[in-house]
Structures are given as C-alpha cells and as structure tokens.
C-alpha cells in the first residue's frame, strides 16, 4: 500500500479563504519578516534534503563514479559518457519499454476496475456497501512491504494457495508452478498486487464524489429514456471529469515510480528481467556499483516523470486556483 496523501487534505477551506485576498477593511495583513521566519524551517529542510539530492543526482550523472571512486573519494568528470553508455545500452531501452507497458496495464486496470467498483458501491444497498467498503479499506490499509510478503506466500511455488486453487479447479499444469521464473510473470504478479492495493483508493473516492451528485439529475435523464451506458458517458463522466483526470495522472506517477513492490517481490529478477526504471537505477547503483550511470538513469527517469507531473499540476492548478 502506498499512503495516498492526496486523500489527506480534506477540503475544508471555507468561504473565508475564497476570493481575491484584497485588503480587508479594518485590519491590514502583516507584511515584513514574520511570514518568512515561519516558512524558513520548512524551506531549509526541503532544500537541504530534497533539493540537495536532486542537484547531487544531476552532478553525479556527469561523473565517472564506480567502486574505486567511492573508496578513494575522488571526483572524475566524465562529461556525457554515462548518458551515452545508458542510451546505447539495450537493457535500458528494454527497461523503458517494460516500464511503459507495466504502467499502462496497471493504470488501465486500476482506473477501469476502480470506476466499476465505485459505481457498484453507489448502486448497492446500505449493508452490502458497508461490507464491500470494509474489504476495500482492509486491502488499502495493508503496508506495501506486508502485502508484498503476503503475495509471495499466496503465489509460493510449493505451498501457495493460488497454485493449489488453480490445480484443484482443473489447471493441473499450475501444480508447483513457479510464478517468479520469468520477468513477465513476475511483473504480472506485481500488477495484481498493485491493482489490488490501488483500486480501493479510486473506488472509495469515486463513491464519495458520486454521493455529492444529486439523484434528480439521473432520474430526469432516466425519464427521458437514457440507458445506463448513456447516463455514465453523458452525465457522470462529464461531472466527474476532474476527478478522473487527476486520479489517472496520480496513478501514472505512482505506478511509474513503484519500487518497493517490484524490488521486495523479486529484486528485479530473474536475470534483471523485471527491472523497471526505478529498480534499474537502484540495481545499477547498489549491486553493480555504477553510481554514475545509476544517477544518469535516475535523471532520465525524473525527466519522464516530470512530463506526467506537469500535466498533473496543470489540472491541480485549475482546481485550486480560487484557493491560492
């Protein structure tokens, strides 16, 4: 499970914060050094830890940095060599393609299933809705490292319950099937894991959004003879469009940088076949001691992520404009 921090900020900014912050009559908002003093610790912490890491990452990506340099603590500049090596490395391009397919499959499944389950929650009666919501929250609450461990157990070769279930319903070839024998199969398990853990976020938030839409709209449309399909695409989808857009980009970003699930499940193996970009950067650095090229991979990954993020932020700003 990832903690979905976007769920954290409950939108409680009332009428007081709305509207342009024009000078109010009676009292002036203070200017001067006080606000700067208040934000200083935050800025300092962010710059010292996050900012420095980003800058160092860029600097190291231009260095020849292996085990030797790590021990001797010397700096050897390499210009664009790391990038050249990476971009000519077939393994890198494999990882890029793999990452994109992996991300696309995950996001489509998460959004599709999440939407269907959200709609189902809306259509259910009170009791059944509570049952389903509790199950979703339970899956959502599972820490990533725990769910990864549990999935390893579920898909265990000898004693796993999945192999047992598959072979007892007639797929005898799954008896003692090793799910982690190839990169594709490993990533399929990671996909099930991530989809299982992420669908609750989409479904529960969609349901919460649906409860704010008045039922009259649907009744009126149904009177006019609209089908369910039509209701969804002509009424629901347009109303919930901001939600769908923002959530899709969030999931793209989250899945793209997924690390713990992939690494803890099979360490990017077998034979580095299930490495996505973040895992590849880690393996290059920590296992191969190629810190320079690890940094270069991570810079390139950041650039790809920034594209997704810029779309996300554009959407968020449209939403939040009146609050800023």
């Amino acid at each position, binding site marked *: 499970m990832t*903690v979905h921090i976007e769920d954290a900020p409950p939108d409680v900014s009332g009428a007081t914060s709305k509207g342009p912050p024009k000078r109010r009559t009676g009292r002036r908002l203070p200017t001067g050094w006080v606000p700067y003093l208040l*934000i200083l610790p935050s800025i300092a912490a*962010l710059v010292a830890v996050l900012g420095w890491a980003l800058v160092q990452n860029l600097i*190291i990506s231009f260095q020849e940095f292996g085990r030797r340099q790590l021990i001797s603590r010397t700096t050897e500049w390499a210009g664009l060599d790391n990038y050249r090596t990476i971009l000519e490395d077939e393994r890198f391009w494999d990882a890029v393609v793999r990452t994109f397919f992996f991300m696309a499959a995950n996001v489509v499944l998460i959004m599709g299933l999440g939407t269907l389950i959200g709609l*189902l929650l809306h259509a259910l009666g009170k009791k059944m809705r509570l049952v389903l919501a509790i*199950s979703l929250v339970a899956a959502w609450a599972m820490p990533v490292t725990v769910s990864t461990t549990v999935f*390893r157990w579920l898909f265990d070769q000898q004693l796993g*319950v999945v192999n047992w279930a598959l072979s007892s319903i007639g797929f005898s070839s799954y008896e003692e099937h090793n799910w982690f024998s190839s990169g594709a199969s490993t990533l399929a398990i990671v996909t099930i894991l991530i989809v299982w853990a992420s669908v609750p976020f989409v479904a529960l938030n969609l349901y919460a959004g649906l409860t704010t839409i008045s039922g009259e709209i649907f009744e009126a449309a149904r009177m006019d003879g609209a089908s369910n399909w039509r209701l969804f695409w002509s009424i629901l989808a347009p109303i919930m469009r901001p939600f769908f857009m923002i959530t899709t980009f969030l999931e793209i970003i989250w899945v793209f940088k997924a690390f713990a699930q992939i690494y803890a499940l099979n360490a990017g193996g077998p034979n580095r076949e299930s490495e996505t970009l973040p895992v590849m950067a880690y393996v290059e650095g920590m296992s191969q001691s190629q810190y320079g090229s690890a940094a270069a991979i991570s810079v390139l990954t950041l650039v790809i992520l920034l594209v997704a993020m810029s779309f996300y932020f554009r959407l968020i700003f449209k939403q939040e404009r009146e609050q800023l």
Partner: protein
Amino acid sequence: MRNARKLWLNGTAVILSALFLFPVYWMFSTSFKSSTDVLTDDPVFLFTPTFDHYETATAVELFWTYVGNSFIVTIGAVLLALLVALAASYAIARMQFRGRRGMVLAVMMAQMAPWEILIIVVYLNARDLEMLNSLLTLTLIYFVMALPFSIWTLRGFIAAVPKELEESAMIDGCNRAQAFFRVIFPLLAPGLMATSLFGFIAAWNEYAMVLVLNKDPEAATLPLWLTQFQTNFGNDWGATMAASTMFTVPVLIVFVLLQRRVTGGLAAGAVKG
C-alpha cells in the same frame, strides 16, 4: 426484474469483497496455524489456533530493537513535521507575503517528489556525511517526506478556522501569537491528529530508504526486517505471516482512527455560539 438486478449486484459485491479481503485473511489465518497446517499441500481452512509463530517471530534476535527503531524514527519524524509544518502552514493560510504562491507551488511539487528514484544519491550523500546506519538520518528524511503534505493538510485546517475568531481575540487584547495559541491551536486538534496519522503511516511503511541507508541490523526498522525475514528463516511462512500481522496492526489502528476524523465541526460550532 428488480430482484434479479439486486441479486446480481449483491453477488458481485460478495465476490469482490472476498477477493479484496482474501490476502488479508490469509495472512491472519496462516499466522495462527500450527506448522503442520501451514506446511501442507492442501491448504487447511479449519484449524486450532496457536500463538507459536508469534513466539518465533518475537524471539528473533534484535526484534525489539527493530520495533524500538521503527517507533523512534516514526514518532520523531511526525513530531518534527508537525512542528515545522504548523509554522509554515499558518504563514501560508493567514499571511500575505511576497513569494507565497511560490511556496505553495514548492510544497505541492515536494509532495510528489520521487524519493524512490533518489535513493542512490541519498545514500551517497549520507555516506559523505558519515550518516549511514543512523536513526537520526532516517528520522530527518522521513520528516522531509512527511513535511509537504503536513503543510498542505494543516493549511486547509487553519484556513477553515474563521478569521473573525482570531480578529475578535485580537480586539479583546491578544497579540497575534496569543490569538494563535489560545484560539486557533485548540481548534486544530482534528487537523493535527489527521496530519500526524498520515505521517505515521508514511514513515512506518517506508522501505526504499532504510534499504540503502541502514544496512546495519542495529539500525534497521521493521519493514527491512520483514522483507528479509524469509531470506533468514527459509520457508517458515507461519512466522513470516505472524511478523506481517504484527507490523500491520498499528497501521490498522491508525486507519480506524482516521475513519472517525471529524473535520470542520468544531469551528462551525464555535461561530454559531
């Protein structure tokens, strides 16, 4: 017709509930099975529960060190984040200053920071500063991870407290600091609670950083212990699931607490009076 639809919906809901719940259930049930019930080709669904695996898992060398480390790091990071975020979010929510928009933007960007991709460079930086295998380093990093959304969440809660409350306190003779501590701060309890719980979950679950930074078992936290448990204990799935369950319980408690998060109610009550 109506009944058929209802049956269909409820049936789907039951199957989905079972699918989502199953891994959680399987973790709990495996942890209470005896080893013979775990190590069988045909899974056992009815069994006499035993606490053996919990004994095995907690008897692991350094187990209590990991528990202690996890709590120190998590609580340290959350408290630090609350303190620092409170100041910044007050400035953002209530004050007008040059660079405010930039600050909001920085906070939002930092909230999305791809830490997973920066682990190598964080490792190298920590190494240069000789801060590897240190709980302080981990606390500081988790604090910075939790900081952006703490600022963001608290900003919302502070903005929800009507300005008039603060203004009337100031008319009654409070200065700005007094108005904050006597009027706003008491109303922020739900906000501080929600913020710290989310911070708790983020830090408690964090895996990538501790994986590279604190390889020394003395400085490791529970997520690292959990993922390495199997490597160290082979196929003792019962004990592994007991360890997983113990690690999950605090998170489940936090989730239950968050469900009750009541927001805005207090402030609304305060103006009505």
